[in-house]
């Protein structure tokens, strides 16, 4: 495995929302999708995905339906609700603001400060 970054607290929810926003997925599919869109650069404890999914369903950001997986097995598929879509948009903006602020703070050269 290449060097992988630990997830910051709270970012797993955001990654799940993003992964699911690209189309309904079951749990393992979400993990693969996150790996794919992050270039395998994030270290995720796989089991931690499920408490997060259950929590997002409770919060009404995701909805879960049983369907049939690509290898013809019964599987639980998650998709975004309207509230989830809205939350993803807000969290993405918040994340971008935070990343930009931290980035510019860390890039400050001594004479500029």
């Amino acid at each position, binding site marked *: 495995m290449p060097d992988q970054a630990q997830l910051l607290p709270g970012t797993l929810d955001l990654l799940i929302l993003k992964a699911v926003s690209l189309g309904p997925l079951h749990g393992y599919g979400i993990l693969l999708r996150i790996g794919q869109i992050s270039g395998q650069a994030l270290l995720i404890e796989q089991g931690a*995905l499920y408490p997060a999914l259950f929590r997002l369903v409770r919060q*009404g950001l995701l909805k879960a339906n049983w369907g049939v997986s690509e290898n013809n097995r019964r599987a639980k598929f998650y998709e975004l609700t309207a509230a989830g879509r809205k939350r993803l948009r807000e969290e993405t903006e918040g994340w971008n603001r935070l990343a930009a602020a931290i980035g510019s703070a860390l890039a400050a050269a001594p004479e500029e400060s």
Partner: protein
Amino acid sequence: MSALGYFRSLADRFLRRGQTEQEMEEELRMHLEQRANDLERSGLDRREAERRARLEFGGYDRFKEECRESFAGNFLETMLQDLRYSLRLLRKSPGFTLVAIGTLTLGIGANAVVFGVLNGLILRPLSVPEPQSLYMIEREKANGSASYPDYIDLRDRNRSFDGLAAFNFDQAGLDLGTGSSRVWLCDVSGNYFDVLRIQPALTALPTWC
């Protein structure tokens, strides 16, 4: 949090508990299996692939427990546990329990009595229109009472109030055909009901009032 998602989650937890548990198990098992399949495809033998899949997943039972905790209504369960626990403790030390219950009983009882009296005497307004503009006129040096001629003088010269009525507590014998008994009554001046702006409950007033 959406109310619908919350209630569905609550129902999952309490009404469909067995099914929910089974589905959770199925979902997590499937994850392990799929991961093992992928690892096997990348060249590992089956047993090594399954071992690696479990390793990457992390603490299986811990995550399952965390899944249960993410359901709505977890606080209900915790509260019930706390309640059962405290009842058990209270049963263990009956002396303390008795003193605690006694203290609470006395405290609450005393409060209720004091509030009851206060409410009747002070807080609840009289049930007449504009009770706040009702005043009582007393003579300072005659036990509070005034003579009838004094009342007439006050009434006729009154320019401060809309009206002035007089009353006097009295006792009398009352016979309703079953033998006489002593009753309290209140003599009032003829304008009493007009001044208070109320109507007697049972009958219209005779015209001479």
